[in-house]
């Protein structure tokens, strides 16, 4: 089974039915899979903070949301994470492409990569790093944890996890 399919299977099994995405090459397969599944309302966002607003609304409307984005988005969304998702105590799984790690071809991506974990730690956001393919086995438990504790939770997925480019 492809990793993308396994990830989206876990979303569906955990009743995540509202997923917003901002495009990413590394996460392209997951985004396609979200679009293909009838159980999921896939709503592309123009910016990640907008997407977090949509997810907050969907959660209050009774659906379990998720956001799929790049780690550069941490820089865009700190205010939203703090004053919306955390302040109102809402769950939000964030499946994040961890650009700028080993096998990264674009130098600029490394600039944000070096800040990613520090920013997430500063925000007290539980953070998991998928580096090897087998790490995906924890995804189901991470989703359950997220909706148990009503927090934003980050799942960083690097190029090695995705098998390089």
């Amino acid at each position, binding site marked *: 089974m492809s990793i993308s399919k396994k990830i989206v299977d876990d979303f569906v099994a955990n009743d995540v039915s*509202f997923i917003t995405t901002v495009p990413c090459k590394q996460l392209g397969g997951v985004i396609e899979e979200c679009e293909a599944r009838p159980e999921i*309302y896939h*709503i*592309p*966002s*123009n*910016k990640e*903070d*907008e*997407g*977090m*607003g*949509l*997810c*907050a*609304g*969907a*959660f*209050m*409307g*009774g*659906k379990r*949301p998720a956001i799929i984005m790049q780690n550069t988005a941490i820089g865009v969304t700190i*205010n*939203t994470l*703090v*004053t*919306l998702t955390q*302040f*109102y*105590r*809402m769950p939000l799984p964030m499946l994040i492409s961890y650009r700028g790690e080993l096998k990264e071809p674009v130098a600029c991506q490394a600039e944000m990569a070096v800040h990613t974990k520090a920013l997430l730690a500063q925000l007290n956001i539980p953070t998991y790093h998928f580096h090897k393919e087998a790490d995906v086995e924890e995804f189901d438990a991470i989703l359950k944890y997220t909706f148990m504790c009503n927090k934003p939770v980050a799942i960083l997925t690097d190029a090695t996890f995705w098998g390089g480019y």
Partner: protein
Amino acid sequence: MIRSEILREIAPILRPHLVVCNIGLPSQELHSIDDQPTNFYMLGTMGLASSIGLGVALAQDKTVISIDGDGSILTNMGTLPTIANNVADNFILLIVDNGSYGSTGDQPTYAGKLTSLTAVAKACGCENVVECQDVDTGKVLQEAIDSKKMTIIVCKCDSGNIKLPVITRDPVNIRDRFMEAVKA
């Protein structure tokens, strides 16, 4: 009319519906005029009232009205294409367009100068966009609710604020109360 006068006038129309209200003075005004469990007050995060409202509307069937401002729409302009392309006929976006950033001291916005949010919303693909004058807001809002078609209302009005205390209700309480009202 200024925003608080419009809110006072439309409060009875809003009351039976789910309302997502913009950060700062709009929420403080609605809270003081007619606090309801069906109101979600934004205490932070400028610009996301329309996105939160659309999310609520897409997740369930009740009518949702987002009360937004011209300044907040300009902050999150990407919201309009998302709304246009994800039609929720139970969603109304009411943009109180007073041409100023009210909560921060009435600094002018571009919407009060050369930029027409009505034209922007139409260009983004929103099908039902109604621009109205402040005195007609109640009538236009009621028509939009009755039409059961997703509608963007751009209400042109005067800038100006009234002095009100901040909302001290706990955010988790606001959210929980709102979610109970959604389920009721």
